[in-house]
């Protein structure tokens, strides 16, 4: 139902086609597409409008860069602007200088506060060596105290509650209890409340007044719609919010509310909830969120990482090799190393449009790359240049040398063949014959997952070179990965390819391993283990 922004941006590109530069006249239609994409992602309409206004002035105000096509400039500006707005990256909780750090969790009903209290306690203990005390201050919802107690028991962490008292009193006593017992973090779980419920908003303000929390966190459901602006505003007025936690990002919500909330509160998003289990709490990454909202994956991030980590020459050489069809295992190894340098596989794949959301739920195994590399290095240089030499006995030797099965070698060679095949097809299209700027551009369009980003011209110098390389870097990466994953002539790996290639057996999207439908075997195992 939603057109992805990638699609919309392709339209935007066609607006800019044949235009030398972006002007106030030709930018509006492209901006309209972006605005619609944002609204479909639940960004508040005013925030969306402000956003497109900013992009407009950013693009129009920017100096015209030699050789950079307007379309590229436009996409780049959109993404950049959104990342800037979503940031900062790596914002952290501030701890008290002396005495226990008090953390207040607040938000609408069912947002995920209680669960997140448990997750946060776990994270603080594991990553910061803290000793948290959980305080059950939801005296309203049936079994809310029990719920937190169960989570505390699972974590072997203390949970404080004083029956029969009002929430602010429970919280105040909880903080006292922490001081007495030597806990250095107190996490206050409060009842869900509507921002228009005056009595309840007064209650949470009273809790904050009495406990002077160092952190006041708003917990927000990523599926929230336009109303996020109103509720965030109200919580922001009644509390001194210090940060935001976005939950339920393991679904397919685009999460535009995050942008609205960020705009309204100007408080950093600290963590994101990515599942129901206690370990499902991750640091927030603005560029990932931006890609998600725009529905395009972190293309620009990938492109930039590629540009900074892979020299232009390297990228172009690899690309030209592929297009010219003299591609060998040696080149494939070079590509593999190039990819390895970009960072963890999951991150790299996550940056590819269309793959991003799938990857979130994949067991990506970086060791797979290491194992692949071992296969390559067990070959002689001659074998890498002449893959046709690899008969069965050589394959066995390589397998032994790398401590792997012959199947692994075969799989690799299959992937290699796939890549070669793809290049042949490109050559058949006449793309490899001459590497004129146009042919190259066309080739890149074919190869890059988005096409538009690859539409760079092939001149040199400055940002142009950067962008040109971006294109080729991305193009070859996209197809390279496709090839690595055994994809035939596909330029993008399919989910199945990814699953099978990344190690880790198939794992349904969005699943939490602890919560799967039990087989009889599982059941037996669980009984043995006792509780999960």
């Amino acid at each position, binding site marked *: *139902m939603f057109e992805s922004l990638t699609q919309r941006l392709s339209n935007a590109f066609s607006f800019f086609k044949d235009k030398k530069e972006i002007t106030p006249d030709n930018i509006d239609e492209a901006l309209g597409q972006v605005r619609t994409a944002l*609204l*479909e*992602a*639940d960004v*508040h*309409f*005013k925030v969306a*409008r402000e956003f497109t206004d900013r992009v407009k002035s950013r693009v129009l105000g920017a100096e015209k860069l030699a050789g950079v096509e307007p379309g590229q400039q436009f996409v780049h500006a959109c993404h950049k602007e959104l990342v800037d707005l979503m940031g900062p990256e790596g914002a952290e909780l501030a701890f008290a200088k002396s005495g226990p750090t008090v953390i207040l969790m607040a938000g*609408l*009903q*069912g947002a*995920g506060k*209680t*669960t997140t209290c448990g997750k946060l306690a776990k994270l603080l203990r594991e990553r910061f060596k803290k000793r948290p005390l959980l305080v059950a201050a939801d005296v*309203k*919802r*049936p*079994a*809310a105290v*029990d*719920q*937190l*107690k*169960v*989570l505390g028991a*699972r974590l072997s962490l203390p949970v404080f509650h004083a029956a029969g008292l009002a929430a602010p009193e429970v919280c105040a006593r909880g903080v006292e209890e922490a001081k007495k017992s030597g806990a250095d973090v107190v996490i206050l779980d409060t009842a869900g409340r*509507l*921002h*228009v419920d005056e009595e309840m908003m007064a209650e949470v303000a009273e809790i904050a007044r009495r406990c002077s929390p160092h952190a006041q966190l708003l917990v927000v*459901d990523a*599926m*929230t*719609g*336009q*109303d996020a602006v*109103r*509720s965030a*505003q109200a919580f922001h007025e009644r509390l001194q919010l210090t940060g935001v936690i976005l939950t*339920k990002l*393991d*679904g*397919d*919500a*685009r999460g535009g*509310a995050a942008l609205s909330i960020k705009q309204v509160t100007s408080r950093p998003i600290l963590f994101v909830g990515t599942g*129901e289990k206690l370990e499902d709490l991750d640091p927030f990454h603005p560029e990932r969120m931006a890609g998600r909202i725009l529905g395009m994956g972190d293309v620009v991030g990938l492109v930039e990482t590629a540009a900074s980590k892979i020299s232009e020459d390297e990228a172009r050489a690899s690309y030209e090799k592929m297009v010219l069809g003299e591609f060998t295992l040696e080149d494939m190894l070079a590509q593999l190393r190039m990819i390895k340098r970009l960072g963890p596989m999951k991150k790299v794949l996550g940056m590819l449009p269309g793959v991003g959301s799938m990857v979130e739920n994949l067991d990506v195994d970086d060791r797979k790359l290491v194992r692949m590399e071992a296969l390559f290095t067990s070959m002689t240089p001659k074998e890498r240049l002449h893959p046709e030499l690899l008969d069965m006995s050589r394959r066995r030797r390589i397998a032994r040398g790398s401590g792997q099965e012959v199947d692994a070698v075969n799989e690799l060679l299959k992937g290699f063949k796939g890549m070669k095949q793809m290049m042949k097809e490109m050559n058949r299209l006449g793309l490899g014959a001459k590497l004129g700027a146009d042919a190259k551009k066309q080739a890149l369009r074919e190869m890059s997952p988005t096409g538009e980003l690859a539409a760079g011209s092939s001149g040199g110098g400055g940002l142009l070179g950067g962008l040109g390389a971006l294109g080729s870097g991305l193009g070859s990466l996209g197809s390279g990965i496709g090839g690595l994953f055994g994809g035939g002539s596909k330029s993008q790996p399919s989910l199945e390819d990814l699953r099978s290639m990344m190690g880790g057996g198939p794992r*349904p*999207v*969005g*699943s*939490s391993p602890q*919560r*799967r*439908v*039990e087989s009889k075997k599982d*059941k037996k195992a*669980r009984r043995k283990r006792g*509780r*999960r």
Partner: protein
Amino acid sequence: MGLFDRLKERLKKTREAISDGISGLFRGGRPIDQALFDELEELLYTSDLGAVAGEVCAELARAHKRGEVKGEDDVRRLLRELLLQRLGPARGEPTFDAKPTVILVVGVNGSGKTTSIAKLAHRFQKQGKSVLLGACDTFRAAAAEQLEIWASRNRAAIVRGPEGADPASVAFDAVDQAATRGVDVVLLDTAGRLHTAKNLMAEITKVQRVIAKRLPGAPHEVWLVLDGTNGQNAIQQAKEFTAALAVTGLVVAKLDGTARGGALFGIQKALNLPVRYLGTGEQLELLEPFEPEAFVDAIVKPTLEAAR
């Protein structure tokens, strides 16, 4: 007090409509033109109408071109009409032809399933039905305890299983006991699950299947509980749950805030699922049968008020 009245009252208390920052759509005898329809569209977006906002405003603009929209009253009337058309008629309450009538309640995490079940039990009991609750959420911490408290407040029977038990087996037991005890209505509470979680969707399909094994024809109703504050993702939820289960109706919770649940229009367009009830608070009584007129008025009225 209906949803509409409650909304009106709330509007007085809060400045929310004003905080949208748009005023004077009609003020000072402003002419009705495209710019006005554009602003109206934006205001409709704030009710989570999504793409429907654009469609409705485009129709308004066409009607205006035909000379059918002359003043504010015409805008109101036509807007109301266009939205109503898109909702379809109210379905009314279940008829309880089968005994027991089994109602399976599903939805994403935290949408309001358990609370809605408590309210439904309350409502059906007031209609003279005997009710049994099945605590099939064996996963979330203290989920069964939560339902148990509601059951005892309602003095309704409850069937629960051990923590971590197979939800389908609890559902089976609940239906089985209701059938042998001659209970009128069984309400089955299930764990929250995101519609993207394939294995959990398979799990709930299995629950539905197992129920039918015990009682052919059951579940007689499968209701999807949506969080009224959700945006366009609610459409995705409805699609996926409908694909996995024989969903027969919607319950929209949490409409007592400033959210208006406009995603329902998109859902109607795609799936044509009847809305059964709206949740308007955390207490047992705060459940209302769906009335399209009141629902639409709750959108039109503040929209035009903000525009005034």
